[in-house]
């Protein structure tokens, strides 16, 4: 119990730094590939997945809403884009991992789903409110495809440290989770 309160203090700071790192890395990679395709890193998403095995759902919802607020405010100046996408992803992460046992393959497949849903939510919210003017085809070819590929590769590279975080308390938590549903 003591460990948990300690964990809750630095988790928002890690999320915040990962949010900034995501866009910094995406920007650098974008310059290196010549600006034609957009490769978005989703380290924050991976951190959310890992954290979901350790935290309460309500706590993570509050934290991600706050991170979403900072994100929208800083990058867009329009609130409600990532503020919607991030908590939605959290709900989905908890729902999926209450049905599926995490393993290397299931984590990759679910990552693909999460990245897709996250990019789509951001895209659709902006289309609906006419903040941008873009076509679905361009979105899939230029953004979604390359980003999915990149994040799967990053996930495979980071699998070892992620595995340690995810499975460290999974065995004990496992029992509680499955008995609940």
């Amino acid at each position, binding site marked *: 119990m003591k460990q948990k309160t300690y964990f809750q203090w630095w988790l928002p700071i890690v999320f915040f730094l990962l949010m900034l790192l995501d*866009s910094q890395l995406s920007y650098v990679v974008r310059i*290196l590939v010549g600006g034609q395709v957009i490769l978005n890193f989703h380290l924050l998403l991976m951190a959310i997945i890992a954290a979901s095995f350790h935290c309460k759902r309500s706590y993570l919802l509050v934290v991600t809403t706050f991170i979403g607020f900072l994100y929208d405010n*800083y*990058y867009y*100046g329009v609130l*409600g884009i990532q503020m919607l996408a991030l908590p939605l992803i959290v709900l989905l992460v908890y729902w999926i991992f209450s049905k599926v046992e995490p393993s290397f393959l299931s984590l990759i497949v679910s990552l693909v789903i999460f990245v897709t849903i996250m990019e789509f939510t951001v895209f659709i919210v902006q289309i609906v409110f006419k903040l941008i003017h873009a076509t679905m085809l361009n979105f899939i070819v230029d953004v979604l495809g390359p980003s999915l590929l990149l994040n799967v590769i990053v996930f495979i590279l980071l699998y070892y440290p992620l595995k340690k975080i995810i499975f460290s308390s999974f065995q004990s938590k496992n029992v509680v989770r499955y008995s609940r549903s």
Partner: protein
Amino acid sequence: MKKFNPNKNIIIALIVVIAVVLLVSVTATQRNQKKDENVVQSVTNDFVAIVDKGLSFPVKGVQNVISSIQNLFNTYEENDQLKRRIDELESLRSENRSYKEENEQLKEQLDLDSTLSNYERITASVIDRSPDSWQNIFIIDKGKADGIEVDMPVMGRKSLVGRIISVNDHSSKVELLTTSNQNVNHFPVMITPKEGNVAYGLLEEYNPKENAFVVKQLTSTDGLQVGDEVATSGLGGKSPRGLFVGTVKSIEANQFGLEKEMLVTPAASTYELTTVTVIKKLAGRDS
């Protein structure tokens, strides 16, 4: 009790949807009307910008190493070309100096303190770019404290790249001309042909397929040719005269056949910007 659950979920979902709609529309209109951001927003933005600036140093370092390696490969060719250019430059510089002196004398005679082409430069470095392909927003490290205001034009290394859309005390957001935001301001431009009269138009949008800006509402197309230079005209109050935009790529009738449209190739690509110059117009600003 079991019947209550789905209803509760629907109500929560509805409340969330309504909240999101309200938030997005209120903040989007606030951004479009160029009102100042409220205190909470600007303080958090400045705080995030400071942390982000710290984080961007190591990332930029890595990027610099990689790009310097890339540069090394074409150094030889580039050097050859540059040597040739330097000879031209010398003569241009002396010519320029004499023009400047002449210009100043003429201005004194006319008692002109500031003309449409006078401006002040504020140099800023790019902290971050929004990880989004459509809005095309940059965050720079200068703000209200350095004299930056909403709607000022922003120059890249060679040419016009965008405009300021929101300002905090020590950071501000730049929206690129290549944005697909539908609520943007349009830059008034002029096209100077080699012979004949100057034509005026409005830079309305960016065509990603052609990689070109679209200029509409042209005053005339007589004598305009492919390769003519396009620059801002200074009409309309926000931008000064003579900021380079690009060169004419093609001129064609629009889809209704009534009006001519012009495609303009940007002078430089906008995806690799590390420092930008914000332009403060001196004459004709409505405060």
